[in-house]
């Protein structure tokens, strides 16, 4: 019997070994796979166990955290959510993150290895450093000026600092409060469905993700291309353009909105926004020259990150001369985001050099120690410095005595360009009102701000839609806020 008891004992030892081996398999070998399983709630619980780091504007947080006392403990809150929604995006326990909340998520949620001097220590202790903060380049006064200027009308504003590329204001209207998406449960689901079904598209970030025909504001690109290419050497020389201008190779006649454009110089054409002259100049520059110029200004680039991705602004690269003529005045297939048009104004204001726009100035640990600073990047030259100087003169004229007088600011140098873009089938849609501009103090110092405003308000009367009436006052308010803040 002794022998059989021993055998039974060996059998039990075998069972123990099997258990130990299997436990080792589950806890070490399979652990990573189990942790990555989407049905495993642990990563989410851990993620929301600590308050999320803050996004700051002018050094003050525009976000917060609320203890929900649920499984996923801390929910995101927003101070003045609708105003900053295009900047922050949402941070939802149900729908993930967007915009800055997504781009800076590793820092904000505390997973970024740069947050701790000893990442290995956190690995061992299973802890997490507190969420870090992201300081934006936005200026609250400008953001507010843009938001109140749009006053709920559909449209967008983007403002950048020409010399650095800092994005100073980023507004999309109508907006929404990202806080309604923060938590979990049926209320959040309902809010999400409601926002997505809303015909006004409040969750669409029009400043970064919507492309509009830029209309006459694109004439700045065309004029700069003409100067750079040497097609126009004297901006005040007459261009011998008929009014209306027959599109090359077709019998279609291109009219002007105003009068006095026949045989006008390029200076006058910019000042009074002559379609005929600028379309002809675009054709003279040629397809190659126009596409190169558009690319230098940032068109046809799908890779721009601010750090959220920006929709690609389009200028067709394969066109017949009549299509090129239309494209050169911002019609046909030419499309631009408001940020892209702000970059066009900024390139002129910055002496021809285009700076990459960016939104996050620096990220810090929760105790203020720096994690990363933004580095200013140049996207290259959009035009020569000489061309930029001439373009500045042309744009100043537009505001002083041309189509953009509503943007004038006493005591400041302001340059701008109006635009009224037609869209829809057979141009049946209400035209978009555009205004792009830049402003600086008098006395030869460099411009401090470049702005693009688009208003797509379908409720306005068709005749009232013009860049000067609908968009220029908003641009002026934003530029005034920028200049008074300095």
């Amino acid at each position, binding site marked *: 019997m002794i022998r059989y008891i021993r055998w039974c004992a060996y059998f*039990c*030892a075998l069972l123990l070994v*099997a258990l130990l081996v299997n436990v080792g398999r*589950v*806890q070490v070998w399979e*652990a990573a796979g189990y942790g990555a399983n989407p049905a*495993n709630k642990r990563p989410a619980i851990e993620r929301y166990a600590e308050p999320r780091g803050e996004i700051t504007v002018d050094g003050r947080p525009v976000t917060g955290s609320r203890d929900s006392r649920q499984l996923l403990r801390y929910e995101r809150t927003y101070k003045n959510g609708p105003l900053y929604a295009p900047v922050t995006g949402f941070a939802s326990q149900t729908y993930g993150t967007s915009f800055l909340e997504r781009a800076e998520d590793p820092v904000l949620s505390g997973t970024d290895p740069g947050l701790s001097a000893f990442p290995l220590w956190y690995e061992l202790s*299973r802890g997490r450093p507190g969420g870090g903060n992201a300081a934006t380049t936005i200026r609250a006064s400008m953001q507010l000026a843009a938001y109140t200027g749009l006053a709920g009308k559909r449209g967008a504003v983007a403002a950048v600092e020409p010399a650095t590329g800092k994005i100073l204001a980023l507004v999309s209207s109508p907006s929404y409060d990202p806080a309604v998406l923060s938590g979990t449960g049926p209320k959040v689901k309902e809010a999400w469905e409601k926002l997505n079904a809303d015909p006004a598209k409040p969750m669409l970030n029009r400043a970064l993700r919507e492309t509009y025909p830029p209309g006459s504001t694109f004439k700045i690109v065309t004029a700069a291309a003409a100067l750079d290419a040497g097609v126009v050497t004297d901006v005040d020389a007459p261009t011998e353009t008929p009014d209306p201008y027959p599109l090359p190779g077709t019998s279609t006649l291109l009219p002007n909105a105003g009068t006095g454009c026949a045989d006008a110089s390029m200076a006058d054409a910019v000042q009074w926004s002559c379609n005929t002259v600028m379309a002809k100049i675009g054709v003279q520059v040629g397809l190659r020259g126009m596409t190169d110029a558009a690319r230098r200004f940032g068109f046809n680039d799908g890779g721009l990150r601010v750090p959220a991705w920006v929709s690609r602004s389009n200028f067709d690269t394969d066109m017949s001369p009549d299509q090129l003529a239309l494209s050169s005045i911002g019609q046909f297939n030419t499309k631009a985001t408001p940020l892209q048009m702000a970059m066009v104004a900024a390139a002129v204001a910055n002496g021809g050099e285009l700076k990459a726009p960016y939104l996050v100035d620096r990220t810090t640990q929760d105790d203020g120690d720096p994690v990363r600073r933004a580095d200013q990047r140049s996207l290259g030259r959009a035009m020569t410095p000489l061309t930029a100087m001439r373009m500045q003169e042309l744009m100043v004229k537009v505001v002083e005595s041309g189509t953009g007088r509503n943007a004038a600011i006493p005591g400041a140098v302001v340059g701008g360009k109006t635009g009224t873009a037609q869209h829809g089938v057979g141009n049946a849609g209400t035209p978009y009102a555009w205004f792009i501009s830049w402003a600086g103090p008098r006395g030869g110092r460099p411009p401090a701000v470049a702005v693009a405003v688009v208003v797509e308000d379908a409720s306005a009367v068709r005749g009232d839609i013009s860049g000067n009436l609908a968009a220029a006052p908003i641009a002026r308010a934003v530029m005034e806020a920028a200049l008074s803040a300095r």
Partner: protein
Amino acid sequence: MTALTAKVTEPAPPPPPDARAPKRRGVELSLLFGAVLIAVLGHLYVGLATTGHIPGPAAHYAAGLAVAALVAHLAVRLFAPYADPLLLPIAVLLNGLGLVLIQRLDATTPANVTAGEQLRWSALGMVLFVLVVALLRDHRVLQKYAYLSVAVALVLMMVPVFFPAVNGAHIWIRFAGLSFQPGEFAKILLAVFFASYLAANRTALALTGRTLFWKLRLLPGRVLGPILAIWLLSVGVLVLERDLGTSLLFFGLFVIMLFTATGRIGWIAIGLLLAAVGAYAVGTFEPHVNSRVDDWLNPFASIERGDGPGQLAQSLFAFGAGGLLGAGLGHGQSFLIGFAAKSDFILATAGEELGLVGLTAILLLYGLLVARGFRAGLALRDPFGRLLATGLASIVALQVFVIAGGVTGLIPLTGMAMPFLAQGGSSVVTNWIIVALLVRLSDSARRPGPAEEAEA
């Protein structure tokens, strides 16, 4: 199927004439001190981790545990002075760890706090331990009650059928607000019955049926009856009460003890064959069992179906989250397992919060307990004692294997309580009695002097 060869037990070796056999009670006392210390520290740690401050009645808790351990120790010192010094400390340590884990899980279910109840059951278990050690002065007394105990065991197992099912299993009886699993006690009674029955009949069993198993009809009914009865019983329990774990345990216990008594591989093969037939039939026709097997084969099927993770998947997630070192007591999320987190799946909490290191330590403690049981069996000189020690050690081993293997996905999951760790009064009390019997058996085994031979 191997040929069955007759085998009569070899004569027991004479005990070494050692007048001053070591009692080792001092070792037991210092080990007990360590066990109580670990449990108290765990209690404090969980309190700090879950509430941020030291739990209020911590001093009472520590004192209570220490006093209980001391009383048990004194009972062993007085009534079983030669007992194995490891048995009691291991039981105290496992019971203490179980209380710590339940206290930790209570923090996640404020509406259902059970640590207090478990503490009372543990105290009752230790009282019964003292009583058994004090009153049962010779294990051979139990032989007289073989048929009584099997009758009581059958009654205990049949009673719950008349009570409502809980979570699909008829294994509880309820009265006066307490729920109670009589099947737990039946284990001990059955082990006693098997031990005495086999001790009396092992020669007959060993010498009959030389050829293939259809000749078994030649066996006298007196010998064959109980075997068939047990097989039917295990399947019957399973069908009536949907208690997969218990029937597996009974069957395993029976096969192991039969083998120990006779050494006949053939019998074991027959037993396993019968078990396989029974299990296959039940697994095919019983949806409750069938789903368990499916779950084991593919624990993540429910996730792929979009129904979210099932209990086994949640359990595996918990083990995986523990990794090598564990999240630390109070820092895991094993409550995600749901309603059985404190009972069947208590090991998942241990795995997640103490890690592979802690879990291995716990499993090795069980291994040590089982090994000490077998050791007592090897050193005893009467067949009944040997069989009883082997049976009791096997009960612990099988319980641990069935439930630990189930929650870690090694075998299909069957409902069973982890000895000493899991929440469940009947289980804790039963296991304390098992330890008390092992203490008694090991005392007899290690007691010096010529022991009377009680050969049947």
